[in-house]
C-alpha cells in the first residue's frame, strides 16, 4: 500500500501537517492543546470521526444521560478554541489507512493528509452483542454523544430497560435510568458486578445499593438472544430460556480498541497498539495514546495493559507531546478513576487486578468506606466510596508500593497519611 502514489484531487486534501492527531476524545484533545501550550510552532490537525468538537466522555453515562448537563457543558473546549489556537479540527472524518513510509494517512472519501508525526488517539468502539437480534432498533450502547442522543430520544416511550453488563457503564446507566423512573434489569455473566475491576466487597456493596434503588440485578446470567418484533427489541432471552420483556436494551460490555488500521500499516499490536514508555509505536514517528495504547504499566506489576480512563488519556497525551518536543519523560502515572452512581462517589487509585488481599476501612453501612488492595503485603490500589480523604492520602501508599500492616490499614481511625510516614527507629 503506497498512498503517496495516488495524488489527491486538487482541493480535496487538507494538506500536510507537523503533527496529525487521529481521535477527538480526551487524549487527542489534550495532545493538541498541550502541543500549542508548550510552544509547538508547526501545523497541528485533529481528526475525529464524530460530528462534534472534542467533549468529555464520562458524563455520557452520568449527567448527560440524566439530562442534568447539556452538550455545551461537556465540551472540552469552546467550539471556537481550536481555530483560535491554529489547530485544524477535522470532524466527521474517518481515517481508513496509514502509510508510515510516506508519512500520510487517507480519509474515507479519498482525502490524504501528510504528517511529520502522527499521534494515534483513536480510542475504541463499543463492543456489540453477537447473538441474534443484536442489531434491532432499541438496542443501544453508550460510547458517543450520538449513542446517548439516540437512546435519550427513545426514552419517553420506554418503561422497561435491560442493561447487559455489570461494569461501570452498565451500572451508571442503570442508576440514571432508575432515577428517571424506568424499570431496570441488569444482566451480568459473572457472579458479581465489577468483577474485572474491583474486589468482592465493593461488588456486593454496589449490588445491594442498586437493588435498594429497585434495579433487578441478575448475576451468572447470559443473554442468548434479543427478541423483537418488526426488527425492534421487545425483550431479552436468557440462556436458561427466560424471557425478560424490555422496550430498550443497553449493552455495556466494553470496547474494542481501534488497532486495525495501524496494524495494517505494520504496527505491532496485542490487545491494543503496543507502545514503549514514551508512547512510541514500532512505526517511525507514530505514537499511540489513550484507550487504544497497550503499554507496560508499573502499577499493573509490569504487565502490558490498556487503561480506559481520562487519567491515562491525559497523561499519555502529555508523554507523547513531551517526546515530540524533544523533552522525553517516561510514562509513570498512578492510575485513577471515578464513577458516580446515585449519591455514591467512587474514586479509585491504583489498579486492583492481581491483589492477594483486600482490607476494608470503615463500615459500608455508613456508605463511606474504602477497600485497600494489597499484593504481597504492598498497597497496590484503593477503592474509596464517598471517602475522598482516603483517595487523596492513599495515593502515596500506591505510588510508593508501601508495605503496610493490614491490621493498621483496617483501623479507620488512623489516617492513611499517618501510615504513609516512614517509621523512624
Amino acid at each position, binding site marked *: 500500500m503506497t498512498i503517496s502514489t495516488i495524488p489527491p484531487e486538487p482541493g480535496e486534501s487538507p494538506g500536510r501537517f507537523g503533527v496529525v492527531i487521529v481521535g477527538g476524545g*480526551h487524549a487527542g484533545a489534550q495532545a493538541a492543546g498541550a502541543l500549542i501550550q508548550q510552544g509547538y510552532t508547526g501545523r497541528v490537525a485533529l481528526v475525529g470521526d464524530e460530528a462534534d468538537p472534542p467533549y*468529555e466522555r*464520562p*458524563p455520557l453515562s452520568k449527567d448527560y444521560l440524566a439530562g442534568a448537563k447539556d452538550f455545551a*457543558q461537556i465540551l*472540552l*473546549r*469552546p467550539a471556537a*478554541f481550536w481555530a*483560535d489556537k491554529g489547530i485544524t479540527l477535522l470532524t466527521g472524518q474517518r481515517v481508513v489507512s496509514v502509510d508510515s513510509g510516506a508519512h500520510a494517512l487517507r480519509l474515507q472519501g479519498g482525502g490524504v493528509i501528510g504528517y511529520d508525526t502522527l499521534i494515534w488517539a483513536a480510542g475504541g468502539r463499543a463492543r456489540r452483542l453477537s447473538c441474534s437480534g443484536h442489531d434491532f432498533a432499541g438496542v443501544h450502547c453508550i460510547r458517543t454523544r450520538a449513542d446517548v442522543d439516540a437512546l435519550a430520544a427513545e426514552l419517553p416511550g420506554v418503561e422497561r430497560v435491560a442493561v447487559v453488563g455489570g461494569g461501570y457503564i452498565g451500572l451508571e446507566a442503570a442508576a440514571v435510568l432508575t432515577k428517571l423512573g424506568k424499570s431496570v434489569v441488569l444482566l451480568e455473566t459473572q457472579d458479581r458486578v465489577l468483577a474485572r475491576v474491583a474486589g468482592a466487597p465493593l461488588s456486593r456493596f454496589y449490588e445491594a445499593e442498586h437493588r435498594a434503588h429497585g434495579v433487578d440485578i441478575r448475576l451468572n446470567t447470559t443473554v442468548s438472544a434479543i427478541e423483537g418484533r418488526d426488527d425492534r427489541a421487545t425483550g431479552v432471552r436468557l440462556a436458561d430460556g427466560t424471557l425478560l420483556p424490555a422496550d430498550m436494551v443497553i449493552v455495556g460490555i466494553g470496547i474494542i480498541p481501534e488497532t486495525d488500521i495501524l496494524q495494517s500499516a505494520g504496527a505491532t499490536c496485542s490487545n491494543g497498539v503496543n507502545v514503549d514508555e514514551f508512547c512510541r509505536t514500532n512505526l517511525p514517528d507514530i505514537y499511540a495514546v489513550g484507550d487504544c495504547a497497550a503499554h507496560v504499566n508499573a502499577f499493573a506489576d509490569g504487565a502490558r495493559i490498556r487503561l480506559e480512563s*481520562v*487519567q491515562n488519556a*491525559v497523561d499519555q497525551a502529555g508523554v507523547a507531546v513531551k517526546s515530540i518536543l524533544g523533552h522525553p519523560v517516561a510514562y509513570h502515572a498512578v492510575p*485513577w478513576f*471515578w464513577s*458516580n452512581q446515585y449519591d455514591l*462517589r467512587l*474514586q479509585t487509585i491504583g489498579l486492583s487486578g492481581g491483589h492477594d488481599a483486600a482490607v476494608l476501612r470503615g463500615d459500608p453501612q455508613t456508605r463511606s468506606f474504602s477497600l485497600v488492595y494489597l499484593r504481597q503485603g504492598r498497597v497496590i490500589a484503593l477503592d474509596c466510596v*464517598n471517602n*475522598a*480523604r482516603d*483517595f*487523596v*492520602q492513599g*495515593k502515596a501508599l500506591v505510588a510508593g508500593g508501601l508495605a503496610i500492616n493490614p491490621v493498621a490499614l483496617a483501623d479507620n481511625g488512623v489516617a492513611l497519611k499517618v501510615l504513609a510516614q516512614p517509621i523512624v527507629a
Partner: protein
Amino acid sequence: MVAITFIAHDGRTRLVQADIGLSVMKAARNADVPNIDAECGGACSCATCQVYVDPAWLEIVGLPSAAEDAMLDQAPQRRPNSRLSCQIQVTAALDGLTLSVPESQY
C-alpha cells in the same frame, strides 16, 4: 454574564465574562485562563483547578465540601482561601469576583 477576574502568578489579570450555571473552572477553561488544568473535567478528583479566593469574597463564595477539602489537601501550595474552581458555580452573586491562580497545578 458575570465578570470574574483571574490574577496569574506573575500578576497579569484576565477579566472573564462567565455564563451563570457554569462552574468557575469551565468559565476559566473556556476563556483559556492559564494553569487551570482541570484534568478530571470537573469531577473533583484531581485538584488541578485550584484558585485562591480574594479574602473579601470568601464569605460569598463559601467553604469547600468535605470531599473538596480532602482533594485540596493534595493540591500544591494550598492556602486557607484555596478552593477548587470546578466546585464553585457561577451565580449572579459572584459578579466582580477576583481569584488568583497558582503558578503550577502540578
